[in-house]
């Protein structure tokens, strides 16, 4: 029923639903339709329940809008106003398009989670099919223990997606192609442009300043690629390039990065130097030159390249660590280093000094849980171990003496007589006992059960076992019964178990009995069913 406080966003007259004329109302939280002349709504759906909307193609005579719910049902509205049908429908469609996404998130999350769990775990999926689809237990009971906290977790967690980083080679990927006549073609995609802007905010700044007032985009990029800023050797920066400022800014930025250094106490970059090993095995006379003036031309161009390289890498890393930065944020850069990057975040390492002072777990005294000391009073019990008491044959000492004397007498003159070890009758009787079917070979006639029963039956048995286990778990978790809710649940579970037995176990048992006549198999199954389930 429509409450008076609901805000009506759109009213569309002459909308037919199920061949009945009526009016469509789009409200703040739901969409409703009421037949002509009546006050009540016959159809009402919350936006949260709607999965998607569909419209009939433009060429069709009937202008329709269909709402598909999460539960699979669908409702179709036919816009019957001759003149404004299409307009009405478009209006309704656009409003829905704006509203649906707001409500979508809540319901979907749970469903998504459930779907994901079912997809990831085939055993769970099978269990779900066996129990819920065949209506042995309801879906809420099934999910009661499993979801445990989907709705409780911080929704912000789900919004966290990993941001795509910047490829270090994005500039190199713009491979220039020869144009045929002394020109070069650079292919710039939106991705590359974005990477350039993220890595070099100075370029972005220039872009914002100049385009579209002074230069077109194409011109800007042409100049960019022509500038020495882009090319490897930035030796002559004195030209009237709009990018010469960028170069200067980069220099500044690099210097400040170096000055800042690395705040990690475990890393000591200053002890790294270029040490040249001379012929004297490390003893070299002249000090390595660090001042610019002593450099040769070649050295200085190498130096420039390496410097450029380092700067580029640092920028790429810094850009990657700037999370969720919006384009309008440029003005508020609180960089402590240079205008180019927010390196303050990046260069703040975890406080390792504190960690060093922390005690290492391994070196501490072990805190073992308290145990009971072993104090055996009757240790002779272990001497014979868990072996049953066997009736000892009591021999009198006279017997013993007699036997010993007898055997000593016999063995005193022992001579091996190897030709008389076996007689043929004895040997043949032994062989017959050992042949298949003989006395000693009886046990082998029984095949293993798992060879006699095909794998589908085994699989079905496994599913039944798992399903029965799940039901029993629900049943036993109700004990001890101290609330009326648990009491109800116990009764319900009992009826569930009975239903399970009726719908699943009995038919399975009968199927086995019909197909596999071997008594062993039937006996085994019925015994298992009896023991396990009851």
């Amino acid at each position, binding site marked *: 029923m429509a409450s008076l406080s609901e805000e009506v966003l759109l009213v569309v007259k002459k909308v037919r639903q199920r061949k009945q004329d009526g009016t469509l109302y789009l409200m703040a939280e739901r969409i409703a339709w009421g037949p002509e002349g009546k006050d009540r709504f016959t159809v009402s759906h919350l936006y949260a329940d709607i999965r998607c909307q569909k419209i009939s193609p433009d060429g069709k005579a009937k202008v329709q809008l269909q709402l598909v719910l999460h539960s699979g049902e669908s409702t179709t509205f036919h816009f019957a106003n001759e003149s404004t049908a299409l307009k009405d429908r478009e209006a309704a469609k656009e409003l829905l398009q704006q509203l649906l996404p707001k409500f979508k998130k809540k319901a979907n999350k749970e469903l998504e989670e459930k779907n994901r769990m079912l997809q990831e775990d085939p055993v769970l999926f099978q269990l779900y099919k066996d129990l819920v689809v065949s209506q042995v237990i309801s879906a809420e009971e099934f999910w009661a223990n499993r979801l445990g906290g989907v709705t409780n977790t911080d929704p912000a967690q789900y919004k966290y997606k990993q941001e795509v980083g910047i490829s270090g080679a994005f500039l190199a990927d713009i491979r220039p192609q020869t144009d045929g006549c002394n020109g070069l073609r650079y292919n710039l995609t939106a991705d590359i442009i974005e990477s350039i802007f993220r890595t070099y905010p100075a370029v972005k700044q220039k872009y914002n300043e100049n385009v579209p007032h002074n230069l077109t985009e194409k011109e800007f990029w042409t100049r960019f690629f022509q500038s020495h800023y882009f090319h490897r050797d930035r030796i002559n920066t004195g030209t009237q390039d709009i990018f010469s400022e960028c170069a200067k800014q980069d220099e500044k930025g690099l210097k400040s990065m170096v000055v800042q250094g690395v705040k990690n106490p475990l890393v000591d970059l200053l002890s790294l130097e270029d040490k040249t090993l001379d012929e004297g095995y490390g003893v070299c006379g002249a000090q390595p030159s660090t001042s610019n003036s002593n450099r040769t031309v070649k050295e200085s161009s190498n130096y420039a390249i390496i410097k450029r390289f380092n700067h580029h890498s640092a920028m790429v890393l810094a850009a990657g660590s700037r999370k969720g930065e919006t384009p309008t944020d440029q003005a508020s850069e609180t960089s402590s280093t240079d205008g180019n990057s927010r390196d303050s975040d990046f260069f703040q390492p975890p406080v390792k000094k504190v960690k060093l002072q922390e005690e290492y777990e391994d070196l501490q005294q072990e805190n073992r849980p308290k145990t*009971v000391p*072993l*104090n*055996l*009073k*009757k*240790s002779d*019990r*272990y*001497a*014979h*171990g*868990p*072996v*049953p*008491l*066997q009736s*000892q*044959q009591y*021999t009198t*000492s006279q*017997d*013993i*003496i*007699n*036997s*010993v*004397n*007898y*055997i*000593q007498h*016999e*063995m*005193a003159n*022992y*001579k*091996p*007589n*190897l030709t*008389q*070890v*076996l007689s043929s009758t*004895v*040997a043949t*009787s*032994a*062989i017959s*006992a*050992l042949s*298949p079917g003989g*006395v*000693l*070979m009886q*046990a*082998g006639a029984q095949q293993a059960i798992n060879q006699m029963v095909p794998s589908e039956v085994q699989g079905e048995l496994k599913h039944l076992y798992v399903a029965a286990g799940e039901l029993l778990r629900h049943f036993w978790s109700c004990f*001890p*019964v*101290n609330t009326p809710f648990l009491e109800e649940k116990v009764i319900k579970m009992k009826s569930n178990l009975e239903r399970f037995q009726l719908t699943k176990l009995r038919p399975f048992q009968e199927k086995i009995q019909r197909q596999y006549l071997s008594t062993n198999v039937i006996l085994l199954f019925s015994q298992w069913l009896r023991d396990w389930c009851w």
Partner: protein
Amino acid sequence: MCADDEVSLLVIVVDVNPIWWGQQAQREPEFTLSKCLDAVMVVGNSHMAMARTNKLAVIASHCQDSHFLFPSKSWRGADNGGDDASSSGDGKYELLSVANNLIAEEIRNVMSKSEYKGNSTETLLAGSLAKALCSGQEMKSRILVIKAAEDCARQYMNFMNVIFAAQKQNILIDACVLDSDSGLLQQACDITGGLYLKIPQKVALGQYLLWVFLPDLEQRSQLVLPPPAHVDYRAACFCHRNLIEIGYVCSVCLSIFCNFSPICTTCETAFKIQLPQMVKPKKKKLKQPT
């Protein structure tokens, strides 16, 4: 036959309990210790004849100790060339005849020397098995036990240690039982992967040994041999020594009981068990009229 010169050792442990064999000789004169030893020699010879690299050892397990019948300390190998003891008239392979003579000599010594002292009537099988394990260290070996007398429960611990050591070293233990079933040997065979056989006819011992126990592990997979028997692994409770299927185990000393008792009698640990909560009957509250 395998092409590589892998040494394969067969250790035969023979139970020569004089009391049992003395009684047996009086019960059944056609099968005595002499006959048994003859059969053992036949198997030993056959094993050595199968391949040149096969080796044999025979241990006699007595009530008081265990002796190596072969190879014995008095065996000097080739030094005995020309000795009339080693030359038997039938042109036998010399190694075999030497072995047989040595075994015979040693067993005579063993049986005549033993003065019966004390009242132990049990075979020291665990010790013999331990000796057998030690002798089979550097090579592929297996142990064949020919058991006559009954099990001795007092050797249980040692026995189980030996069995697990054999399992770790991949040494098979086979058992050929003459008289009464032995649970310990059944376990030994099951754990190490050997064969257990209780033979119905003692006089046919030689045939059984040749048929079942002569082939080694790889050859056995190609043969149809008696299937493994079902081993009863049920433990016996410490209080009554009855075999139980479900019992109570003390978590401190691991002793097994058939009934629950709040104090373990072996280590005197007291256990606190939470009894199920009693649901008190609720008094019905009278509803106040609103």
